[in-house]
């Protein structure tokens, strides 16, 4: 601690330069935070996927349905513990910009399949008791200012007409980043009002297995069970399903990695040059410190500590700004939950410190190797 004064005094030497360097880290980490949040938005399904859940879709495509009768046949397979189903509704609230996913779900089994979504028992019973009832995520309710009891008109795009729903329950995610932007309603309402072709068909099944380790074997067994039938299946663990679903939107991950990599590499060049300049300007002072009796290792640590402190302060500022801004991005990316996970916050700070360390390393080594006699002769 007794060297802190010296450390801070050195950073105050050229305030503008220090502020700009801190600013470079802050901007880079802000961008990193935004990219991490966007990455999470696209890949959140993978992050929160259940290890013991499988998704069963039509082998041809997810938009092709499966027979409702498969439910009981799935339940008969060894290793299958529970089964639920859902249909994609694809409706619009007020206008096309208000996109959010709507699912027609099996209200008898859906809640048990997804215990990570927390719903008040009374509200759930209210939903179960109302054929036109619906359950909405807390974020979705907040987005449109919906409350329990509100009547919501949804214009169908796949299933024509305006569909009226009563909000009977609002769910919350039990983990940070759980998707609170979904809209569920009863599948029997879809059957009742929907066209003839949808009757007896579901969009996909979600299957819970007894043991997550058997997921691959049960997936194979399911697909074999329905092989050579008019509705062949493709079964994947939920995580793999979410990953392939995310891939359909393009390789966002690679794009984010490239942008992030370029930003951090540029930051490294800029700050490395700044640090080298800062040390060159202080050659005599470092020589004087060594003359007084400060060791070579002290010179190394002093320069590295300055670089790390700048990186830490800039990193914290950038991450804090990103954390403040990300909730606003949810509105810019309708249908996605934009969230900056704590793990990514820590990763960002570690990256900033790594860049700080790398940027300070060469100047610190040159400070350590500085020969006092040569440096003082240059004065």
């Amino acid at each position: 601690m007794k060297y802190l004064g010296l450390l801070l005094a050195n950073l105050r030497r050229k305030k503008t330069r220090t502020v700009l360097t801190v600013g470079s880290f802050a901007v880079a980490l802000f961008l990193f935070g935004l990219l991490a949040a966007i990455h999470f938005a696209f890949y959140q399904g993978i992050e929160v996927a259940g290890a013991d859940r499988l998704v069963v879709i039509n082998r041809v495509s997810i938009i092709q349905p499966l027979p409702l009768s498969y439910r009981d046949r799935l339940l008969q397979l060894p290793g299958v513990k529970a089964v639920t189903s859902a249909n994609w509704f694809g409706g619009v609230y007020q206008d096309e910009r208000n996109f959010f996913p709507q699912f027609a779900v099996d209200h008898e089994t859906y809640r048990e399949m997804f215990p990570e979504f927390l719903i008040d028992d009374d509200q759930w019973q209210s939903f179960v008791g109302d054929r036109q009832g619906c359950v909405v995520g807390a974020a979705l309710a907040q987005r449109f200012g919906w409350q329990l009891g509100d009547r919501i008109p949804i214009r169908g795009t796949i299933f024509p007409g305006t569909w009226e729903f009563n909000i009977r329950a609002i769910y919350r995610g039990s983990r940070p980043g759980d998707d609170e932007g979904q809209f569920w309603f009863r599948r029997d309402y879809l059957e009742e009002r929907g066209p003839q072709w949808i009757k007896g068909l579901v969009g996909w099944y979600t299957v819970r297995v007894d043991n997550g380790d058997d997921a691959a074997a049960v997936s194979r067994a399911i697909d074999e069970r329905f092989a050579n039938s008019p509705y062949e299946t493709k079964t994947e663990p939920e995580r793999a399903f979410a990953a392939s679903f995310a891939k359909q939107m393009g390789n966002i991950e690679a794009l984010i990695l490239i942008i992030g990599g370029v930003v951090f590499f540029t930051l490294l060049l800029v700050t490395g040059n700044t640090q080298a300049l800062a040390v060159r300007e202080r050659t005599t002072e470092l020589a004087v410190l060594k003359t007084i009796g400060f060791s070579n290792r002290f010179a190394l640590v002093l320069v590295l500590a300055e670089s790390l402190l700048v990186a830490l302060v800039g990193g914290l500022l950038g991450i804090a700004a990103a954390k403040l801004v990300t909730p606003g991005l949810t509105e810019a990316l309708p249908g996605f939950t934009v969230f900056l996970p704590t793990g990514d916050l820590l990763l960002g700070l570690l990256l900033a410190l790594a860049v700080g360390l790398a940027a300070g390393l060469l100047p610190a080594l040159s400070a350590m190797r500085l020969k006092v006699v040569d440096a003082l002769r240059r004065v």
Partner: protein
Amino acid sequence: MVRVDGVDAPDTLIRVRNLDKRYQRGSEEIHVLQGLNLDVGRGEFVAFMGPSGSGKTTLLNLLGGLDVPSSGSITVDGDELTRMSSAKLTRWRARHVGFIFQMYNLLPVLTAFGNVELPLLLTRLNRAQRRRQVETALALVGLADRMHHYPRQLSGGQEQRVAIARAIVADPSFLLCDEPTGDLDRASADEILALLTALAKDHGKTILMVTHDPRAAQRADHVLHLDKGVLVEAAGEAARA
């Protein structure tokens, strides 16, 4: 007692024997110091004079453990510098040597207090003890009222006084001064020289000073000339010895 003839003198603080220093500049070898002998007793104020390039600063660097000789030995208070590792030499410098430079070499980002405190950061003294010692050192050089001023807020003479306070604050065995008045006007130079004289006379500090200025050299107890890498006593010094 100061001797340059290689005969051991009693109560010697600094003993130099057969000191050689050579530099390689391209293909040319420069022999800066040649078989130099020196004995300096405690509390002596010694001035080194000589033309530019005669090896004065090189000698000072060797005595201060900033450079290593090509051959020969330097012993200070029983410690032989030439046998010390670089790290040990650094620690030794912190305890035994106070440096005063021509250009003061204060850290511009620290106040007078911060500059003087620097050598004490290498000790085990706590904050309060450091503060007391810094205040004492600054009072000794007459700058108690300037301790929170930055170097840019001080005159050249005041800056050099801060540098002297920094050199003496950890109570080193001896002071090495490289042209301490070379960048000062006459009045400021006289103040600095009076201060150095007082440190030697009143506080028993051993001072070795390199200077081009005969008036500055006059303040010293002994004036030695370096010529072609060899130390010789100035006129009158031999008789005084």
